[in-house]
């Protein structure tokens, strides 16, 4: 993929959005996080590589917008034991790159590390994350978020926070 010339302005807006989304995840602000999704949003964590067909193969998460809602309601239910107590987490995000711009949509890639501390102990997660963001009068909305964990072909501990 070649480099494209991107206006500083859009890059900066995109970065601010991604950092804000990460903060909502880190602080378990589930409802505010859900509001960042477009109505046709897809939240995808592939398994066994990052190039599988999620319509044919198992993914760790492959939520359409309605299932994202179920995921959030489960976290808010007070009985999602794997997140009660909640994991302490912090996302670190680097290498933010605008990959493509088309109309009101912008594709963004970044590298992410998440440090998690929970009842089991500490777990480190690393991923390549790609977004398809849609610009709206209310700001960006996520039409697609793909989190490709670098070890998604290996046995993984429970991942029940929002990544």
């Amino acid at each position, binding site marked *: 993929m070649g480099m494209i010339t991107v206006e500083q302005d859009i890059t900066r807006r995109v970065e601010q959005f991604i950092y804000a989304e990460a903060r909502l995840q880190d602080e378990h602000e589930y409802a505010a996080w859900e509001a960042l999704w477009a109505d046709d949003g897809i939240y995808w964590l592939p398994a066994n590589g990052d190039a599988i067909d999620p319509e044919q193969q198992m993914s760790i998460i492959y939520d359409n917008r309605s299932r994202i809602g179920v995921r959030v*309601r489960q976290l808010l239910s007070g*009985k999602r034991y*794997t997140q009660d107590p909640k994991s302490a987490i912090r996302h670190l995000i680097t290498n933010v790159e605008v990959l493509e711009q088309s109309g009101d949509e912008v594709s963004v890639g970044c590298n992410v590390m998440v440090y998690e501390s929970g009842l*089991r102990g500490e777990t480190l997660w690393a991923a390549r994350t790609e977004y398809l963001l849609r610009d709206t009068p209310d700001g960006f909305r996520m039409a697609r978020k793909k989190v490709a964990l670098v070890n998604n072909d290996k046995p993984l501990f429970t991942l*029940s926070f929002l990544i």
Partner: protein
Amino acid sequence: MNVMTRPEVPDFATLIEKDRVHGSLYTDADIFRMELDRIWYRTWVYVGHESEVPEPFDFVTKSIGPQPIIMTRGADGQVNLLQNRCPHRGNQVCTEPQGNARKFTCPFHNWTFANDGRLEATAFADGYKGQDMSALSLGKVTRVASYRGFVFGSFAADGPTLEEHLGGAAETLDRLCDSSPTGEVEITAGFLQHRVKANWKFVLENETDGYHPAFVHASVFKVTDSGIGGLYGSKSTAVTRDFGNGHTELDLRPEFRMRDQPLSWFGTTPERLPDYVAAMEQAHGPEKAREVMIDGTPHVMIFPNLFIAEIQIFVLQPRAVDDTVQHVTALQFKGAPDINRRLRQQTMGSVGPAGFLLADDSEMYERTHRGVLSRDPEWLFLTRGEHRERTDDDGFRVGHATDEVPSRGIWRHYRQMMEVE
């Protein structure tokens, strides 16, 4: 005198009673090593499914306990279970999770093996002049047998046949295959691997524990209209069953037969899966098809590691006393694309590291493992439903959906296995 001694062999009769078991059975690393010898490297262990190696020379890497196993389809169509270890100096000959290969070449000294394990060639062969190399092949699992496409391996040269081992539980695999219009299930959607820092027997016992769903899965029942909750309530007519040999099931058919609605077990209706229903009626005739589609697929734990959870297959892999991997994927019915799509979607929602159900189950496994490390009380208490345990028409022990019939059956068999040197 301070000499290294082998750990004493515990007296299992003092650790496993009729309705209580000692916590050390889950946490003692010496007992775990004994389990490898007396259970995992002896009895029939599920390894993989024939549909994972459909063509000659296909291979897929699997495991028996901590040991990696390569499952291959030979040129002759036979399924082989090989050990991933060069007989020369021990290097691993296969590092790909799956593929198609006529031979495996060890990268260390370039020895080459056919995909049934036979040594085909050594590099610079003049160095072995006059030596009989014919015994040097990849190690093989001693006995390999398959039932309805499910391939099992046993490292014991003698012992019960696979069918004798499965006993009454074989019928549950028949029941599963009956729900496929072609009579065949396939494993084609790739596995999720969900790791827990907990002993494998917590997972084993939980699979047919009907007491926990109302509590551990309350969040799912609250936020979806899954219709599962009532199956595991105190008023449920479902039964727990102990088939013997450690195999146990949660038989939900009494509940589904009361509902008398085809595909209700799967939370859907015939109208939403017309192609599947037509294919089932074609295969079985309308009357039998209706019965099969009312009953649904089984919820059965085949000792020690194959769990059929209605629409998923779980393969349990113990790697250490407190390290267990659940390999899980959607069951697929050969020739039924419309239901298969739904089977995959429901599976992805339910299981794996982020699943709505299994993330909470796995949380319980880990908390329980930490819990039993406490010294007082030392025992786990498995008496639930003893007063109402009975024998069914086939001679199997059964109880209420929430009773601990399965755990008691698992431990009865476990003790028998562990007491044989």
